[in-house]
């Protein structure tokens, strides 16, 4: 039986030495092929007597199993080595840059509008909209600014070419005509904000002929200046994302409100950047007041029963203040460098639960 043992030794050595799958296949054929050495040995079992077969059968079969096992093991070893070699060959320079993805952005005015919309939605304010080209009546007259009222001069209005009947439409000078439209079509209670483009004949470092305003309007049976104060306070806290604000109210004049109030917020400009909520400076927020009874009346709302407040501020200005953009003009110049610098990622959607900004 020494030849079985030596055959086993030879075959296992040949398997271990097979350097690739072809060499291994050669060894397999030489051992387990039709004329292979093990196959030949197996054939001899048929001619043996029972005694010999009983003795040699397990030996030869054992040899066969051992060798096939060794071949299978060697085969996967070789496959792994071949894979490893291929993977080594496939090495790339992973420091090369990834495929470029253009990085889009949301304009700060849109972003700030989404922030403000979220804040006011929590207080139940819907978003009202109106056209940029307006009737003189809605932009002025119904807001208690009759023709020749000196307040019209504060507005520097853009007019469109005269119509056939000589009337002239205009580009709204404020978003207040949206309030007029809302009051004309909706019965109180009313809670809306009206954001949008506004236009004035004005151009310098802090003025552009087009800019954005946002106004809020509340009409019901009990809302008063105290509620206005609370809303301005709460809005400022939420928008500027600070815990406390200190407001200063100044009496003012707008034809469409009575009493009229302008709001300033305490801030600190001593160090170049504006810090909100503390300091010795005052930041002008915007104008407001109780809706003038004449305006209510002209908009079909009974001033003896209903009252409410309106306030407005510059949307662009809010974006400038919160995000530290020093100049207004670049907001509308579409310089791609500015858009990327001051823009917001598409998925940075302001929410109250996640915070308005990062």
């Amino acid at each position, binding site marked *: 039986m020494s030849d079985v043992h030596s055959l086993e030794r030879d075959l296992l050595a040949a398997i271990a030495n097979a350097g690739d799958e072809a060499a291994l296949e050669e060894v397999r054929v030489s051992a387990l092929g039709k004329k292979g050495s093990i196959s030949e040995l197996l054939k001899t079992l048929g001619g043996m007597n029972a005694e010999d077969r009983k003795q040699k059968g397990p030996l030869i079969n054992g040899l066969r199993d051992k060798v096939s096992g060794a071949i299978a093991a060697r085969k996967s070893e070789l496959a792994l080595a071949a894979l490893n070699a291929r993977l080594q060959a496939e090495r790339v320079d992973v420091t090369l840059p990834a495929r470029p993805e253009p990085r889009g952005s949301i304009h700060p005015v849109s972003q700030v509008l989404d922030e403000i919309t979220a804040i006011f939605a929590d*207080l139940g304010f819907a978003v009202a909209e109106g056209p940029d080209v307006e009737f003189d009546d809605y932009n002025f007259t119904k807001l208690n600014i009759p023709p020749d009222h*000196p307040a019209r*001069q504060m507005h520097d209005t853009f*007019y*469109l070419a005269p119509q056939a009947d000589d009337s002239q439409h205009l580009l709204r000078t404020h978003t207040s005509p949206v309030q007029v439209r809302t009051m004309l079509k909706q019965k109180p209670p009313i809670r809306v904000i009206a954001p949008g483009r506004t236009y004035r004949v004005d151009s310098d470092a802090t003025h552009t002929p087009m800019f954005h305003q946002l106004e809020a309007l509340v009409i019901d049976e009990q809302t008063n*200046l105290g509620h206005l104060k609370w809303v301005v306070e709460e809005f400022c806290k939420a928008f500027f994302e600070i815990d406390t604000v200190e407001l200063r109210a*100044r009496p003012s*004049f707008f034809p469409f409100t009575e009493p009229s109030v302008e709001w300033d917020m305490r801030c600190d400009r001593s160090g170049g950047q504006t810090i909100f909520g503390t300091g010795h400076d005052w930041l002008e927020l915007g104008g407001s007041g*109780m809706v003038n009874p004449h305006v209510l009346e002209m908009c079909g709302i009974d001033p003896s029963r209903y009252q409410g407040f309106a306030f407005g501020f510059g949307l662009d200005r809010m974006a400038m203040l919160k995000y530290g953009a020093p100049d207004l003009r670049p907001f509308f*110049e579409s310089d791609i460098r500015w858009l990327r610098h001051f823009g917001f990622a598409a998925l940075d959607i302001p929410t109250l639960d996640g915070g308005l900004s990062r």
Partner: protein
Amino acid sequence: MKFTLSWLKDHLETNADVQTIAAKLTAIGLEVESVEDRGAALREFTVAHVVSAEKHPNADKLKLCMVDTGSDIVQVVCGAPNARTGMKAVFAKPGVTMPGTTDVLKVGTIRGVESRGMLCSEKELQISDEHDGIIELAPGAEIGALAADALGLNDPVIDVSITPNRGDATSVYGIARDLAAAGLGSLKNGSVEQIKGQFPSPRAVALKFADGEVKACTMFSGRYIRGVKNRPSPQWVQDRLRAVGLRPISALVDVTNLISLDRGRPLHVFDADKLTGNICARMARVGEELLALDGKTYTLDSTMCVIADEKAVQGIAGIMGGELSSCADETVNVFVESAMFDAKSIAATGRKLGIISDARYRFERGVDPAFVVSGVELATKLILEFCGGEPSDVVVTGELPAPNKTIAFTPAAVKRLAGLEVDRPEIVRILESLGFTVEGGEPMQVTAPSWRHDVDGPADLVEEVVRIHGLEHVPSLPMTRTHAIARPTLTPGQKRARIARRTLASRGFNETINFSFISRAHAALFGGGDDMRQVANPIASDLDAMRPSVLPSLLAAAARNQARGVSEAMLFEMGATFQSGMPGDQALCASAIRMGAAARHWSKAEHGADAFDAKGDMLAVLETAMGAPMTAPIRAEAPSWYHPGRSGTLALGTKVLGQFGELHPAVLAAFDLKGPVCGFEVFMDAIPEPKSKGKARAVFAPSAFQPVERDFAFLLDRDVSAEDVLKAARSVDRTLIDAISVFDLYEGKGVPEGKKSLAIAVRLQPKDKTLTDAEIDTIAAKIVGAVAKATGGTLRS
């Protein structure tokens, strides 16, 4: 409106300092723009007496002065031609810092002579540009005292901005009244003494308005004063006028400016010898001209009120007097005019003529109609005091307006509108101290004083009470929540716009916001530029047309970026476009452009922005906005600003939802833009609203059977559209065919001239059993047949 602290104290008895006063002014609605303490920079300058001024031993133009500073006699070299023995001058001793500089004065030697200080000019003190000589102080100035006092500069100047409703606060007296009401002191008696006329006025006054004309002047009063001697005003008048930025001219002119500022009462003083006959207020006749005091000649029309004598217009009513009848040094007889003009008329005239004057400023805001004659009396008093003379009787025509209406007012109104509790006595005190009359019980009957034409209802009275009582007392009152948990507030359209914006940003576009007006030439390229969309008064000639499309705004923006060296840009805007000049005739449009090739990269071939980029962008916007896949077909047509062969339109019926393509090279050339540029326009308002099907999704029923995919390559005429092939294939079996994609398009070698090869992959998804080979072959044959029938295409072998 500027005034000085001492001027305010003429009318207000107060111990408050300037900072307290300024804070209170802002708190009551007279917003302080600035408080200027002009004396602050002059603290180290003193009054000195020039004991002697003799020629410098070594220089012809210099003088050697011995100066008494009050503590010393020092030697000063001075180059001023007006330096002379005996004068009082402003002295700066060595060590003093010169205003507006960091220069510190040192002891110097000038032409061999020591100089221990300096005698100063106005320019050196930075109080004017005057540098011809040193300041000569009044002979009575106290030696050693502060120069600022002697110069009348130790009087802070307060500048307040007056809202257009507060004509009464365009005067120092009116401001003092507000401050007194707000508890900052007591208002002094401002009554004006009547001066008895010595003779009848040789000039009559009249209001000459025809029926149907605007009565732009309702009251006209005046007085003749003879034998005056015009001369410079007293120093205190000059100091005051200078302090508030006015140039003193002569006593007769300065008196009118002084009263205008002090009482808000504009006046005019004519040189009566330059007038012909009587004086009237009337509307100008078309074409009448006036050489006004500003040296300009104005051509007037019949909407403008004027003051005229029997020969010519002598003044533009309430705005500016005429040069030819103005007072001069030799003026002997004057006529003082005080009239009541209509605010709107004055405003319109001022605007038309482009004249801004202190008189117009006040008349526009409304002057006190009850002070017309008092204005004449006050002017008389000052003219007699400064210039002497003899006054005539006062002449007056016209009448006072009806007194202000009485307003029924309850303290509860303050609580109702302002949320603020103010008790009745305090309300009465505030109103009365502002000049209101308060009578009766509940409700009280309140009448506004003649100078408060802006008050006409309870809300105005609430404002008066609140601003004087203090806005800071208004409590902060939480608003009620409309719902325990806030409801959504955006409309479907607003939600669509928001998601479309963020979709474009996520695809790599930078959002822009551009002006709604563009140049007319650019507008014309996009179907606009007509008269009805023209801005009548554009701020710039290239911003004169309401834009018909957002694309021209984006192209102009791209061109600006390209000019800065940016070769690739992806820009979008969500904004209004205008179909006409009518309110409401506008549409919200989402529009974007891609300029240049996608970024160069080592891993891929460059590819210029093309129609398929734009189509994909457009579909992305439409599909996210709709929340559903867009299945409507694309039509190979688009407006003229697109490349005619590389653009398309997507419409539902006749409603165009969007259009896309490469921009027409001629359009790009008009923007000086190097292409290629592709873009799209989506009309947000045209997008159908999603049908509400409830929140639950349809039943999820995936097939249990294997899908089968078969590829087909068709040989087609070049102009057959892919859409036609897909439509034909899809029509074969709408339930079994799950998806079709185009995976290859080839023209060239191996494909005959004029033909193309289009390869599609059709995916079959059986629902109830596995497909047999025979069934698959049948469908495949049907697809080939349908495509052949629809397009004439054959299966490529």
